[in-house]
């Protein structure tokens, strides 16, 4: 009882402090919603697609479509490339790891100009790239322990620790209980990249916040994802960050069911449960796929590793320019919506500091995990 009361007093003080800070900052820098300031929609007429139908690519998706997240984002990029660049594209879904190898080998038989793989294990890629030196490959989300040396393989990694940090700021500022959790698809660096960045973001604005974590161990199991989310909410968390592919759908569902908040991942998931999804930490896999195809069309394909992140516009928040999701403003709880301009201000400042190098977010893929 005493603790609860002291917590409340504390939170009131913090809120008061924040308000005064906001008032002060409001004087010298009024938060400008770039989305409102930006010209309404691109009025530019989409140019008719050039005819590049003699250029072909095949994209291998690691799981079936329909996760409304990572996989769908990759497929959307491929579809955009087909539509805008006028190339011939084949989108191939696989049902899991055991089919990746066979699907890529089958794709090689058609000898397209480029085969794009998404989140396929590096040993599979390594073996196939070695076996078919005349076939060009581009791999998104494949992490090699040592930089590979193939003339026919381009690797593209999107680092998402920085935008996760920004999502963490939003969560840290808007949590009512002071407990924030993450639900990951599995306990390995590719996922912890998101979670560690997010947790650092939370702690940067709310040092006393308690952090919870759980791992589903599967990327296509929404039922378990939901169970774990419900359990985290029951432990007092009120905002959960899901990094679990289709399993994460369960987390979003649990947020809507319990009236708590969740943060979406990879795609813009804000509209799936309006008002229950605070923001989405987007990873523009679609842009990565599009870039691959664009390079083949322009003849600028280059083997080797490309690392991109927030600075290059491949990672960001759904609130940002380009997506400008304002679903939470319309459907979210009023007391939190009132705080949004302040949150966005803090995020804009943090973004500038990250890009300037003043804030360094841990990248667990490059540094030892915590």
């Amino acid at each position, binding site marked *: 009882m005493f603790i609860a009361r002291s917590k409340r007093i504390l939170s009131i003080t913090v809120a008061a402090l924040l308000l005064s800070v906001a008032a002060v900052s409001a004087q010298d820098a009024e938060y400008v919603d770039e989305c409102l300031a930006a010209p309404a929609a691109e009025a530019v007429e989409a140019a008719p697609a050039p005819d590049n139908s003699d250029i072909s690519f095949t994209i291998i998706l690691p799981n079936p479509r329909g996760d409304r997240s990572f996989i769908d984002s990759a497929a959307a990029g491929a579809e955009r490339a087909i539509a805008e660049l006028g190339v011939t594209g084949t989108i191939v879904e696989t049902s899991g*790891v*055991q089919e990746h190898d066979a699907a890529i080998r089958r794709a090689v038989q058609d000898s397209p100009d480029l085969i794009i793989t998404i989140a396929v294990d590096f040993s599979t890629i390594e073996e196939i790239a070695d076996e078919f030196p005349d076939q060009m490959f581009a791999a998104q989300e494949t992490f090699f322990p040592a930089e590979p040396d193939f003339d026919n393989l381009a690797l593209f990694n999107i680092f998402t620790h920085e935008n996760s940090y920004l999502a963490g700021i939003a969560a840290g500022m808007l949590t009512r209980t002071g407990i924030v959790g993450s639900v990951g698809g599995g306990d390995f660096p590719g996922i912890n990249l998101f979670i560690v960045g997010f947790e650092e973001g939370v702690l940067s604005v709310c040092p006393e916040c308690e952090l919870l974590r759980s791992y589903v161990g599967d990327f296509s199991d929404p039922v378990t994802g939901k169970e774990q989310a419900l359990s985290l909410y029951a432990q007092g968390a009120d905002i959960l960050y899901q990094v679990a592919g289709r399993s994460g759908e369960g987390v979003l569902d649990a947020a809507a069911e319990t009236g708590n908040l969740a943060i979406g991942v990879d795609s813009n998931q804000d509209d799936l449960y309006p008002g229950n999804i605070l923001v989405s930490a987007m990873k523009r896999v679609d842009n990565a796929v599009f870039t691959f195809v664009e390079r083949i069309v322009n003849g600028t394909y280059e083997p080797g590793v490309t690392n991109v992140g927030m600075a290059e516009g491949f990672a960001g928040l759904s609130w940002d320019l380009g997506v400008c999701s304002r679903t939470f403003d319309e459907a979210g709880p009023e007391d939190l919506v009132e705080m949004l301009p302040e949150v966005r201000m803090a995020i804009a400042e943090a973004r500038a500091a990250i890009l300037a190098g003043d804030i360094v977010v841990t990248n667990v893929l490059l540094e030892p995990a915590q």
Partner: protein
Amino acid sequence: MKFLRRTFDNLSIPVIAVLLGLVASSLFVALANVSPIDTYQRLFCEGFGPRGCETFGDLVFIEVENEDGSLQTVFSPLYGSGGSRIALILEQITPLILTALSAAVAFQAGMFSIGMDGQFVMGAITVAFLGYALPDQIYMLAGVSDPEAAPEALKTAMHLIVPLICLSAAMAVGAIYSWIPGYFKVKLNVNVLISTIIFNAIAVQLVGYLVNYPLRSDLNNIARTRRIDDTAWLIPFNRGIFADVEWFSGARVGIGIFIALAAVALVWFYLRRTTAGYEQRMTRGSSLFARFGGIPTDRAALRAMLISGALSGLAGALAVLGVERRIVDGFATSGVGFEGVLVAILAKESIIGILLVAPFIAGLNLGATNLQFGDIPRQLGGIIISFIILFSAMEDFIRARLTALFKWRPTRQRSAPDGEGAAA
């Protein structure tokens, strides 16, 4: 004449079953807004045809362009430009034949064991571990610090011994894993169907745990074990002796297919030509009668379970040693064991039947997965396969209808009582 008629009779029924399956699934194909004929041509071309196959005709003869631009008609199964699908089928049926044999042996002792999946993954994880641990030990004992610099003689010896030990170990593990439910059945009368289902679940979870924790090689996105040593690797033809033959390109078919075929011959000999095999088949026919006749039915059943488990374990070992070279998380749920059960049932447990059904199912699976390369949704492939399997399972019904329709040979007794028609 009689032989011709019988062959025609035996062949016509599967063909009719396939056609019925295609007709039935047309409804779903049409619902998906694609032309059924195009879909089926695509399905069979992707499964059985050569590269560039577009129509049913291309399955047999295909016109290909020579280097000088002239056209030439070639016999499709031998056309290997860009790799042959037949080679891919050979890769796929290697474990499939073994798990199907495994199921057939158990069924023919009256044990309805469907534990092939569990035995398969247990055999696979055994060699995935031994495949690198054993060479490591040998190098250490031989005092070789750098395996690359090991003396040639040692390497040659290891190339012979290590795979042999790995395969034997996998067979032993599979056999034990199958013997336990068999023992439960014989001593405690526990239903084999239920106990093997549970044993499958245990094996899949156990392998999932092992791959994710103790045997995990690195912290990559997808958990996997260390790659097996090159001395344990059964090098596929396309990397070894037939590296220049384009027909094999991309398909990892290797010595395993011969091991599988040898197993077919041995199992046939065991079941049909040995006392033990006879005892086992008697046990299935009528357990009480067999026991009254002095046949140790319990022993016969347990022996069948041991052989069945060893065959499935061997299948798992060949999948790792010849194809995968490591186990990646998700391998355990791929369900090769269940495919084997399906093949055994469709083949009516006939050994020769398995040799015909396994390539057919493997080709259909291949075709169904690759329908997408023709912009046809992959789910349709699953529906078509399911219908074909459903109608294939209605063989007796179709046979009865046909007989009634044509009154071919009213005097002749149709099919053996235990349904070994396909074997004849």
